[in-house]
């Protein structure tokens, strides 16, 4: 029981990070129908920006942790957004009218370019960040006789889960209630018609990339704080997992991305907890394959409707 609860907590934490990244995939897919393979690397860039800001803050002697966290979050979101915007502007917009595979290929190119850029400028070795937030709440006491373990919810996990819930709520409201969100939904359904009604579709798409990148930056900050080490390659696996999460939840669906992220996080953690750590990725992708056989449009995706 104790073991199960601990794994559940770990799984939800991991799932939150995946979910934040998955939103970027699903939104971009929804609005322009392409997979932004560079999104995982945008997440990685976000983590590096966060690390840089952290080290600068520590170097100039800022010690108030909440202040540091706030500044790191804001700066990382801001700069990563610029990266996300630039990627769209440079690699995708010029190919807007082109055949479907063209932006997919530039996306892979962007992904490689970003990885190599960070590798060249930051070095290939892992970058550690000294643990910043330690301690936690003990939920269940261990018992030596029954072999029960201590169940702990660390402060870091609380921060990750709360931040994710707050951001996702805010984000869902933004899409559902604001002008920008309405324009995004309109562009998603019929970009040409939206532009004939005076909506600047290019700008709306740019803002979608900016939002996705901002959320990826938050995920990057969380990843950095949670694991304490990053390198130029973290974007690849996290990106693939988040993409899997988006597909599992139903690509194009926001709640689907969140649910998918959570599902992938839980599957991975439970598999490593109860079976073997080596095969956790196999487990995650197998579940994806099985789900897609029975629910081809994912858990919450709308079935493809033939346009008449």
């Amino acid at each position, binding site marked *: 029981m104790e073991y199960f609860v601990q794994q559940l907590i770990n799984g939800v934490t991991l799932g939150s990070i995946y979910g934040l990244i998955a939103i970027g995939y699903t939104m971009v897919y929804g609005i322009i129908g392409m997979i932004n393979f560079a999104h995982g690397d945008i997440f990685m860039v976000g983590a590096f920006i966060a690390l840089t800001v952290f080290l600068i803050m520590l170097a100039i002697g800022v010690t108030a942790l909440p202040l540091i966290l706030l500044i790191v979050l804001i700066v990382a979101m801001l700069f990563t957004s610029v990266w996300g915007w630039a990627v769209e502007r440079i690699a995708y917009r010029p190919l807007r009218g082109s055949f479907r595979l063209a932006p997919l290929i530039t996306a892979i190119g962007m992904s490689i370019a970003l990885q190599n850029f960070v590798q060249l400028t930051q070095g290939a070795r892992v970058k550690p960040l000294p643990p910043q937030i330690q301690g936690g709440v003990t939920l269940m006491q261990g018992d030596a006789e029954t072999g029960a373990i201590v169940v702990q919810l660390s402060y870091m996990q609380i921060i990750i889960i709360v931040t994710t819930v707050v951001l996702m709520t805010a984000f869902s409201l933004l899409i559902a209630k604001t002008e920008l969100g309405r324009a995004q939904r309109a562009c998603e*359904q019929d970009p040409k018609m939206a532009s004939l009604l005076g909506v600047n579709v290019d700008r709306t798409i740019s803002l979608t990339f900016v939002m996705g990148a901002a959320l990826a930056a938050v995920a990057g900050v969380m990843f950095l704080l949670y694991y304490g080490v990053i390198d130029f390659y973290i974007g690849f696996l996290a990106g693939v997992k988040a993409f899997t999460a988006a597909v599992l939840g139903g690509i194009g669906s926001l709640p689907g991305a969140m649910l998918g992220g959570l599902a992938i996080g839980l599957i991975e953690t439970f598999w490593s907890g109860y079976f073997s750590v080596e095969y956790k990725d196999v487990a995650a992708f197998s579940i994806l394959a099985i789900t897609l056989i029975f629910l081809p449009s994912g858990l919450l995706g709308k079935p493809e409707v033939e346009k008449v």
Partner: protein
Amino acid sequence: MAAETLTAAEPAAPHGWDLDPVLTVEHLTMRFGGLVAVDDLSFNVGRGDITALIGPNGAGKTTVFNCVTGFYKPTEGRIIMRHGKSASEDAIRRLTETGEPWSESEDGAIFLLERMPDFRICKDARVARTFQNIRLFGGMTVLENLLVAQHNVLMAASNFTIGGILNLPGFRAARQAAIDKAVYWLEHTRLLERADVPAAGLPYGAQRRLEIARAMCTEPHLLCLDEPAAGLNPRETSELNELLEYIRGEHGTSVLLIEHDMGVVMEISDHVVVLDYGEKISDGSAEHVRNDPSVIAAYLGVEDEEVEAAEAAARAAASAAAAKGRAENGPAENGKDTP
């Protein structure tokens, strides 16, 4: 205005639409590879008129619409939209030379639509359109469809969403105004009680009305309707006529419509332009066009010799030559029409 244009049918007197056009299409040509969908077409749309663009299937009517609304970039030609007092030829020539898409003066503004991206044609030049095959945002509610059409107003009022999130008073007022306008058009299209229904759930006739309501929410100076009466029953058709008369009468919006239903065309149009194989074959009042032998020939498919005979009798030899060229061009364009 209607009476005036009808009496202006005598050949000598200039037509109302030539004196004060809201839209001028000049030497418009649209080629798709070797196919000439629209060939050197020129016509005027009078301010405050209801103008009909008619012609047999594949005549290039929708292509003209697509060029006017920025869906296609025309191969050649100039499309001039005028706001306010009619701009002088001089001003238009100067604008054409500068390479700018539009210019403003105290008399109004002129826009060269072929130079503008489609969202600006709606936003700045204020041309709205509807489609032959309905293109509503099916997943959104009826009201939301109308709010998307007011996106620019709301976006500006909400300071790019930030004011909207904070719910500032300025934004609240703008939002209320937008909803009021939507409600106004819902009332006039009899859709008010369905405001919160997803647009895809509306019956066909209601979807057609909603498309017009949505176009009107962009506050257009020119409303382009692509077959608004297609698929409507007689009662709905007469309602449509009333709605268009109302839009023109109360809002002074000029209307340009493509229509196959000759009942609608003859009843409400001040001015009819007839296309066949991408060329203009007739241009005038409904009365004039109805009696034009080349129009009758195009619609009823009279033999070429008969056309020539009829035209020789009725019109100058020049138009007969055009008809011959048309016979050589072959059927075309249909299918390219709708993207």
